[in-house]
């Protein structure tokens, strides 16, 4: 479908033959549409093959659209540069936390009309849908995946440390004792923590939620920072104890998302907290040995407010796209990300292609639509599931029982950013004064919230 004339012909007359002069005329207005779409960077060969096959399937079903994959993943420090420089693909993904801001500033295309035409447009889980909607409820960005944070652990290190990999820690006290045992017995980091590129704040907020706290209070239009709280203090004290009393957190305290995934996949880390659906990237980007992998629900304190931080991913279309690209982009989003969640044939085709390239099928996710649709979609692909389901059970058995709490709404990434040095200070300075750090961070966060 890459031939210009052929594509022009097809688009021009809607799949029927036509004279070459007609095609020439039409080509300038509707033409073959080229859409650059995001593909995760650093994928192994099998994953790229699977992706290419999905592209081929799409192009076959949509003659006249030429899909060009472009390596892309969202990181806080590169996204804005790409956005400002205009180097993002036409279809790209962003976390839930960025949706509203990008929409308000019109930095992404308004595709709400096209999205509204999709058969499942009204079926999105209301909480999930909100992340991609403008103030007036129009869906500019499409939620394609949702996650809740989870505790990932290395079963092999658990065994080497004399722990039972089928009984992962269920409380933060157990996390501490298990981490110490792993560090003492294996010399590896028992527990590691994300700390850079805004992820330090992301995980600190996660732990704060798990300890029953909240980092931000919204009162109609006024946002108040709540960083200097007993819950946050307890979280940092826990980290401080693990780092300085137990010495169970290894020797690297400057991890970004890729860094910690690499360290975990290569067996350097016993436990860490990250999104529950991380299995896919651990395998396809970091060569994780499936046998090592274990995941369980995030331990929650016995407090009414304790909950699991949840977020997700939105698919968005570049603001610079014209109507033809927008239409094609939404078709791609439908085909690649969403149809497989709602349509049996699409689900089976996706799972079959993915499994044939030995890529993971069946990694746990939170439903973008309702729970019933999610369960049904799992049934459709059951025969292709190739992830070690037994090892995921500690998580999948309980993930729906936990209270899910969305990320802070205002200045999310900026507040995360200013929490990075707080957690870094606790992990690298033995005499770090937690109370003072939190007091300063709270004041800075409040200044940010007031300014924005």
């Amino acid at each position, binding site marked *: 479908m890459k031939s210009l004339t052929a594509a022009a012909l097809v688009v021009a007359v809607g799949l029927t033959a036509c004279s070459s002069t007609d095609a020439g005329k039409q080509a300038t207005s509707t033409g073959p549409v080229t859409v650059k779409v995001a593909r995760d960077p650093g994928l192994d060969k099998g994953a790229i093959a699977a992706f290419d096959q999905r592209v081929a399937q799409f192009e076959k079903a949509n003659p006249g659209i030429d899909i060009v994959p472009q390596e892309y993943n969202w990181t806080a420090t590169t996204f804005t540069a790409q956005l400002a420089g205009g180097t993002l693909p036409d279809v790209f993904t962003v976390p839930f936390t960025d949706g509203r801001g990008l929409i308000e500033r019109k*930095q992404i295309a308004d595709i709400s009309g096209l999205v509204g035409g999709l058969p499942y447009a009204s079926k999105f889980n209301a909480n999930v849908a909100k992340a991609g909607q403008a103030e007036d409820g129009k869906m500019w960005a499409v939620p394609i995946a949702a996650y809740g944070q989870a505790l990932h652990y290395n079963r092999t290190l658990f065994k080497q440390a004399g722990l039972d990999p089928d009984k992962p820690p269920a409380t933060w006290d157990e996390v501490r004792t298990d981490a110490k045992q792993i560090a003492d017995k294996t010399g590896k980091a028992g527990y590691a923590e994300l700390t850079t590129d805004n992820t330090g704040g992301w995980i600190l907020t996660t732990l704060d939620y798990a300890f029953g706290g909240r980092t931000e209070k919204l009162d109609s239009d006024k946002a108040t920072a709540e960083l200097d709280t007993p819950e946050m203090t307890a979280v940092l004290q826990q980290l401080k104890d693990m780092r300085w009393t137990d010495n169970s957190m290894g*020797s690297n*305290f*400057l991890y970004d998302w890729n860094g910690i995934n690499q360290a975990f996949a290569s067996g350097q880390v016993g436990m860490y907290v990250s999104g529950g659906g991380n299995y896919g990237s651990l395998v396809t980007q970091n060569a994780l040995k499936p046998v090592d992998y274990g995941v369980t629900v995030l331990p929650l304190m016995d407090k009414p407010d304790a909950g699991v931080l949840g977020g997700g991913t939105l698919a968005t279309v570049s*603001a610079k796209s014209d109507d033809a690209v927008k239409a094609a982009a939404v078709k791609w989003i439908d085909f690649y990300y969403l149809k497989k969640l709602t349509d049996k044939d699409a689900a089976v085709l996706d799972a079959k292609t993915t499994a044939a390239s030995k890529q993971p099928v069946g990694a746990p996710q939170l439903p973008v639509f309702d729970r019933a649709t999610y369960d049904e979609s799992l049934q459709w692909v059951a025969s292709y599931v190739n992830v070690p389901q037994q090892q995921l059970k500690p998580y999948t058995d309980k993930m729906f029982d936990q209270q899910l709490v969305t990320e802070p709404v205002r200045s999310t990434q900026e507040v995360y950013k200013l929490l990075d040095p707080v957690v870094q200070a606790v992990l690298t300075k033995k005499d770090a004064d937690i109370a003072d750090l939190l007091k300063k961070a709270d004041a800075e966060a409040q200044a940010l919230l007031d300014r924005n």
Partner: protein
Amino acid sequence: MAAETRPVPLVLPRRARVRIRGGGLSTLVFLIPLLLVFGVFSWIPIGRAVVMSFQETNLVTPSTFVGLQNFRDVLADPLLWTAVKNTLYFAFLALLFGYPVPLVAAVLMSEVRRFKSLYSALAYLPVVIPPVVAVLLWKFFYDAGPTGVFNTILGYVGIGPVSWLQDSASVMPSLVLEATWAAAGGTVIIYLAALTGVSTDLYEAAEIDRASIWRKVWHVTMPQLRGVLLITFILQIVGTAQVFLEPFLFTDGGPANSTTTLLLLIYNYAFANSLGGEYGMATALSIMLAVVLGLLSVLYFRLTRGWSKS
């Protein structure tokens, strides 16, 4: 846009006029490509940056002029002074270690008789390695665990393990060590070239006077290199004041902002907030830094004007 490109015409005609008088139309024709390249890739962006420092913009919606607000915001940011302190510390350490090392290396290398070109090739090799690759490589060396490359080596002699990048006390010297390793080769080559210009007669005269090697270096080599030394000194200061790569790739400013330098802060203003950063603040700080470095250079050349003449 019209206002933003204004600095360019101011520069072009004046330069052009000078050249025309000197060489006629052909000179101008030959000059055009260079002027265009400079104009498009240097002067227009610089002009735009100056304008942007007085604006509030997200690069998508139209920008508004905010006067000196960006400058005030930057000066009120507590992180600015941390960044200034860190940058000065880096510059100081780089001067302390990075400045003498190439000089000593060049003097020693000029003294050896055999394999001279091998030594200069070895000294220059780090410069050939792409900087990002070098930093990623050194990240392995600096692994803070007992199995890290440097820690393993130090372990043989019973030292360590050292925390390297993971401790706010050792992180900056670690960055300077890598930066010196990476950059020294270029300076060594400059010194070596300058050393070949030192007349051998002077050494012979010194030898007749039975001068020791240190006296030869101090009384012959150093005075002869004075001009080059003065230039490399200010280049080093200007260069280290703009250190970005090492803190960005090694530590992202951590741990706890102990390696947040001015350029990293500028980058963070512009790009760390994924929802359209403070481009105005970023350009305002860039301009302040440029002005300070410009003034420093002028002052330096004034003060040292008499020194470089031997």
